[in-house]
């Protein structure tokens, strides 16, 4: 970051005014704050001004300050504090914000910057010759998993290569920004692993559906998500005795959540647990992804004791109260 100050007078517009819609929006925004606290609206107002004209000019700062009855210097303090406010004109077609923080830097942000320097302007915040493009380096945009990334307007373009960014810049310069889908520029969903899932693979088995990595096509992302949530629903494997329900939580290793899951599977009594066969255990293990927990925590032994003589028998066998 460098010293932030108002742009040179030569580029400052002589006045600024909100469009009709923006003005209405701004008034609503100011009204959101309690009386006497209207000045709190300065940030959204400045941001709106920036969205309207690409950058925040002196005239815009003064206009916003007047609207919330704030001294100019206080509004300027806000505008210079947040680097998200552009204090000089930006490219009319695109202002490219290259993330330069460590993850992106390690994944090639410096090359992206070099590209911008070559393609747009030598220095950050400078306009290219026809005033359509500009760039700057910013801090982490919060999409580090998909490094390196750039932000243009409100969208991020992730998993970039120099070539891809060049295409993107060209598209923007040609006014074809719509043709570029924001987000990862490689075949993956959001920040899911780039080479397919490496964990939670069993989930697909349970639902009985064989599925590959869901990052196949972007359009279906949301649907896939919903499905994987549904996959968590278990089918009943055992038939629970109608009359009886024990407190399975007494078995060390079973808490309220597990108890509920076991109940869902149809296991509600100590006797049922005590009578489990090897194959049953495997079934439960798979269904709940226990990975041998039943054996490890000696559920069967504990259940037998509790089924036989309740808490007393448990204390006799294990030398402590069940919890």
């Amino acid at each position: 970051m460098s010293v932030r100050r108002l742009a040179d007078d030569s580029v400052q517009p002589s006045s600024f005014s909100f469009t009709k819609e923006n003005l209405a929006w701004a008034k609503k925004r100011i009204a959101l704050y309690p009386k006497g606290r209207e000045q709190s609206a300065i940030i959204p107002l400045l941001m709106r001004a920036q969205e309207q004209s690409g950058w925040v000019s002196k005239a815009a700062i003064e206009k916003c300050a007047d609207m919330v009855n704030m001294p100019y210097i206080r509004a300027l303090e806000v505008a210079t504090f947040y680097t998200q406010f552009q204090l000089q004109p930006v490219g009319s077609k695109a202002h490219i914000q290259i993330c330069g923080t460590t993850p992106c830097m390690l994944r090639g942000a410096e090359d992206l910057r070099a590209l911008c320097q070559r393609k747009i302007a030598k220095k950050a915040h400078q306009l290219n010759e026809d005033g359509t493009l500009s760039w700057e380096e910013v801090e982490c945009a919060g999409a580090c998993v998909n490094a390196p990334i750039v932000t243009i307007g409100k969208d991020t373009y992730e998993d970039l290569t120099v070539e891809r960014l060049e295409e993107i810049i060209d598209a923007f310069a040609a006014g074809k920004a719509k043709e570029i889908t924001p987000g990862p520029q490689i075949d993956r969903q959001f920040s899911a692993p780039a080479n397919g899932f490496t964990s939670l693979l069993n989930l697909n088995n349970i639902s009985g559906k064989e599925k590959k990595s869901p990052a196949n096509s972007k359009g279906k992302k949301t649907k896939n998500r919903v499905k994987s949530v549904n996959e968590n629903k278990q089918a009943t494997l055992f038939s629970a005795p109608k009359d009886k329900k024990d407190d399975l939580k007494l078995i060390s290793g079973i808490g309220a959540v597990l108890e509920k899951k076991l109940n869902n599977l149809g296991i509600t009594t100590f006797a049922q647990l005590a009578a489990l066969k090897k194959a049953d255990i495997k079934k439960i293990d798979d269904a709940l992804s226990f990975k041998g927990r039943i054996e490890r925590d000696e559920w069967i032994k504990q259940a037998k004791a509790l089924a036989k003589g309740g808490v007393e028998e448990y204390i006799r066998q294990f030398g402590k109260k069940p919890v």
Partner: protein
Amino acid sequence: MTQIKVDGELIEVPDYYTLMQAAEAAGKQIPRFCFHERLSVAGNCRMCLVEVKGGPPKPQASCAMGVKDLRPGPNGEPAEIFTNTPMVKKAREGVLEFLLINHPLDCPICDQGGECDLQDQAMAFGLDSSRFTENKRIVEDKYLGPLIKTIMTRCIHCTRCVRFTTEIAGINELGLLGRGEDAQITPYIERALSSELVGNIVDLCPVGALTSRPYAFTARPWELTKTETIDVMDALGSAIRVDSRGCEVMRILPRINEDINEEWISDKTRYVWDGLKRQRLDRPYVRKGKKLVEANWDEALNLVARKIKKAGNRVGAIAGDLAGVEEMYALKKLINSVGSNNIDCRPPMSALEANMDRGVYIFNPTIAGIEESDCILIIGANPRFEASLLNVRIRKTWRAKDLPIGLVGQRVDLTYDYTHLGEDIDSVKALATGSHKFNKILKKAKKPIVIVGEGAISLAKNSKKTGRDILSMSLMIANNAGALREDWNGFGLLHNAAARVGGLDIGFVPDNGGASSLEQLELAKKGELDIIFLLGADEYDLQSLDKTFVVYIGSHGDVGAHHADVILPAAAYTEKSAIYVNSEGRVQMTKRAVFPPGEAKEDWAIIRALSARIDKILPFDNLAQLREKLYAEFPHLQNINQIKAGNISAMKKLAKIPAKTSNVLLRSPIKEYYLTNAIARASKIMAECVKARREREGANR
């Protein structure tokens, strides 16, 4: 009250105290940069870190944390903080190391050297070296006007200057732009700050980022002689310290006086010092033909003596704005001794008369009393420029409780909100008769204050004293509002000159058929006044004095001296011990910081010497004897720093509403704040201030 343990010592403090205040109450010094008692808490320098027992495992900023924020111990023991643990020591060292990273360490060429908080605290709490090997940051200097020199690389971002200008001075021009390492103190527009109090940020700046421009590179603090005295630039008598070297005043700084100026002073008070060296009358002059030529004391005094003897009682005297009580007393005695009563110390057409009760002409509620008030009405005054520190009090009170303030007079920026009630005498009359909207608000107030400007009561129309009507109506307003009570005297006359109340106190006003200043000038025009003494009187229209022999006793070659036939050079306020009574009626005394230049002498001694030459020897040979006589006649003058209260019933008697008033506009008599007296007019710095202000206003248009 809560209990708190500081370094193991149990103390009891009010629960609104901060940890810093609590530590101080326990006698522990806490270093600081950003915290200042009279400014809001910023908590951004981190120099005041302390350890809190049972608190988070990191040091806490003691200036920003209250004692009531602390949790008691597990068994309800009082909370405990430490100011001397290894954690605190390390924290302080760390803070200083960080601060010094970007500090240029140019102390040898820095004017703050020797009185720099950073220097002192780095010595006391810092490490002996830095581990920083990168390049240091550099910050461009900013232009803040002719009074402030900026070396912004030295700034440590305490934001005291920003808080002072916004909170106390009431201007929103300075801010902290940017963030982090790139943060910079910057004015919104690079031009002189538009306040008459900016000099104070020089004192507030804990480092050498903001220093005094006129004082730059002229002296080191340890080579200065410090004299504690009072100011005479306005009628408040702010407490000041005059720093001198040899026979030169090098600078003027404020002293704390909670009753008057707290710890601020106005720019005129602070920067007028170069006027003390310029345009000085350092030897007697006698007019020969058209020209004033140098003379010696004998020659000059003899000439004056001869003239007096010839004049009989056709003698007059006018005391100017900066005259001390002693010299006025001596001059009064001298004039009386030749059988004349032509003495005056008031502005022309003043409504104040001899034998008026003191309550009518002093600022009864007192400056500190403003903070108790719940409603203020200002009539015909611009307190911002007539009495800047009084205005600061009003603003302070307004910020604290948003009290209603009304103004009759010119609509000006007073740094606080007020209701403008009109600009002419009719508005005053409406207020006096109770028909004005504002009367309701006044009525409701428990402790209303009615401030009346000296300008308003000196108004005239068709050479009728309109001011007299304003005075009596103002008293009426005060009385109706319940401001004239034994337990609350809310009537305050605001004078513009340091000499005024003292002069009124000793009766330096025409009595028993004496002529007022204006009448004297009239007489002079007609050739009926043979000799007139001007005791530093420069604010009068002296055009008509050709036929009269003019004796000017004063320190500066200003208007008065130009009209003089004889100049008797006298001492300025930093060069003599003299009593001044401020607008509140508070008796104060100046101290001599340096000797008068050349052959100049203290005013009273000049008058005493003159009296010997006309064989009317005044009965004192030194200042002590003079004061003895003075005190015998006016006992209240010996009570330094005290106020003799006004008499409520006497004040009430003067309250009335005249049937007919001729309409005039109420205007502050101050045309140019920076040039209100001879010393200020001699000052180059003040002239620069005027220029800067004109430029600023020109740019605004």
